[in-house]
């Protein structure tokens, strides 16, 4: 790194249709609503993972993924997993996905650029019920989760500031027509 700032991608992933599985997407939406971030930071709703995320991942140097993570803690626990630990600790055997995050990162490595990656994740309370609202536990811990993500952004060389006027919430937004 010279004086060029690291390109940081903040990728919220998960399926917003399954309660807390959408915590990553909700968090990234909320950060976008409340904060202005520096030019080297891209906030992105990645939805459910797949090879189509390779382009943005290949184009960043530091990847911060926000996701639901099954650890051993109580619902709402926030975890930090780093790239090399991911490889060791997370089974990508029998992935339920076409390609999961670890597969996608390995593919990025093979193609030539595997960015430094970190996952900031939260233990979900419920990730089975089809509902678009987070569980009360996850909702209550969302701000803490966002705090850790912002800290991660700062550590990676990004900056942020609170917007004077926050953007509209999903409920306030008119459906596009």
């Amino acid at each position: 790194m010279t004086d060029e700032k690291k390109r940081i991608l903040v990728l919220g992933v998960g399926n917003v249709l399954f309660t807390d599985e959408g915590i990553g997407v909700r968090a990234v939406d909320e950060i976008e609503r409340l904060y202005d971030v520096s030019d080297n930071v891209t906030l992105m709703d990645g939805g459910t993972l797949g090879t189509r995320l390779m382009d943005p991942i290949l184009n960043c140097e530091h990847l911060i993924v926000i996701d639901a993570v099954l650890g051993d803690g109580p619902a709402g626990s926030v975890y930090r997993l780093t790239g090399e630990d991911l490889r060791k600790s997370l089974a990508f055997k029998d992935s339920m996905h076409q390609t999961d995050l670890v597969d996608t990162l390995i593919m990025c490595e093979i193609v030539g650029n595997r960015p430094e990656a970190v996952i900031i994740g939260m233990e979900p309370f419920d990730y089975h019920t089809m509902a678009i609202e987070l569980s009360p536990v996850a909702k209550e811990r969302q701000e803490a989760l966002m705090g850790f993500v912002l800290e991660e952004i700062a550590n990676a060389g990004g900056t942020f500031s609170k917007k004077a006027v926050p953007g509209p919430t999903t409920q306030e937004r008119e459906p596009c027509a």
Partner: protein
Amino acid sequence: MSGSKPQAKPTPQSNYSGPVIVDPVTRIEGHLRIDAVVEKGKIVDVRSSSQLFRGLEIILKGRDPRDAQHFTQRACGVCTYVHALASTRCVDNAVKVKIPKNATLMRNLVMASQYLHDHLVHFYHLHALDWVNVANALKADPAKTAVLSNSLSPNRKETAAQFKAVQDKVGALVASGKLGIFTNAYFLGEKKNEAYYLPAEADLMATKHYLDALHMQVKAARAMAIFGAKNPHTQFTVVGGVTNYDALKPERIAEYKALTDEVTAFIKDFYIPDLLAVAGFYKDWAAIGGTTNFISCGEYPTDEYNLDSRFFPQGTVMKRDIAKPGNFDSNQIKEHVKHSWYAGEAALHPYKGVTEPKYTNLNDKDRYSWMKAPRYNDEACETGPLATVLVAFAKGHKPTVDAVNFVLKTLNVGPAALFSTLGRTAARGIECLVTANQIPVWLNALVSNVKGGDTELYTPWKMPDEAEGVGFVQAPRGLLSHWIKIKKGKIENFQLVVPSTWSLGPRCANGKLGPVEEALMGTPIFDPARPVEILRTVHSFDPCIACGVHVLDAHTGKTASFKVL
């Protein structure tokens, strides 16, 4: 081996009798379980069971019809756009808005880039490992591999050094145990799996192109994002047209063109020749894995209201009779639930569809899937690339006829070979190639409209109090339909009939097997512990079972290095 025509090998057989369960089937989207009974090395009974409940229909009730697309495209991590399009088309249809020509072209161009992306990824990254033994590639002679590869297309200029580099890269992966993307592949194991029988050089060639295709799919995805505003969840379709005004700029169009041109060249010089080369060694699979009935709604309209205006024609081929293709009539669709985890036994048309879950248990042989069983005229129908290609071939669609004849001639087989696992995989390549060749036509039409001053992308409309509508999309995986009933301006009922329920659904009320079940009957199993033969046929359908759960599971590994914040 280069120069000499490969001969069909006899399919390796075993004498195994007993159950074979693949659960979950990997390298697909979602969770599918295949429960087979094998007698003397052949499948004699089989159930295809989807283990994920999709309750989208329930969550959509009472919402604004315009919002449906934002929910339906989240059902899945792969087919996001096709759901957005089907939802948009069904509301377009319900509110009776006629969208501008350019909007149709934009929708087609985004769809085309999705086809290019999905079929490329399917062949190289989801399906190839069923045919290609990456471990065996390490034994290949890089110089001979270069000769083989360059003999397949005049535009290939590959070198021994490049193939050697791939061997080193893959060798390092295998040695480190960090197999990653190859984990659980059925070519792994102490004993060689005899069901794989490509020469080492063909294995190495395909492995290199697996890696090259990773680069190429990134470009296809980028093309999709240029017109689709973003990827994976496109944000440009609206009831009444599209909103990607930025995509009308010449520099955006040029960007899309450069990317799709490059991907198209890769399809012509690599995908199709590789497909034909691999197929040449596995010709025995032209007699395994076939089904009987096929259905397609066609795709790429010029007039959204007219199914007959679609570039790939709509239609059916029943009882394998390509001499008498039929017309697609949506009134003939019914969804059965007698063998699914839903209440009741009634087979209903989608407008009258009910989604009332009633789970029994995993080992129930009577009700055994979260999928309903769609039937057309009471018949199970395969949909997807093979259906599109067979219908187009049967109806004399020239670009498809030419491509099919080229493939059949190269492989030295007749049209009967299409009704097979190999035929299905070849059809996907054909559909991809024919689509790619059509992109410049749509792009030129768009450019000439814009030059003539027509930049219309949206037609205003009014929400009716009551209406019903349907949106048909022939997605990369097949026939997708969304059905909406609007009451007081809100969604009263919404049903999705998705490609994978057509192809991978369970038995119907009349006890007829679903297409993948039918296709698996009689399939030889050489090694019951590594039943790659099941994967070949199941993957050839490109299953995509709405992704529900993807939570990272930290329980399954060493979790010691977790840092709790």
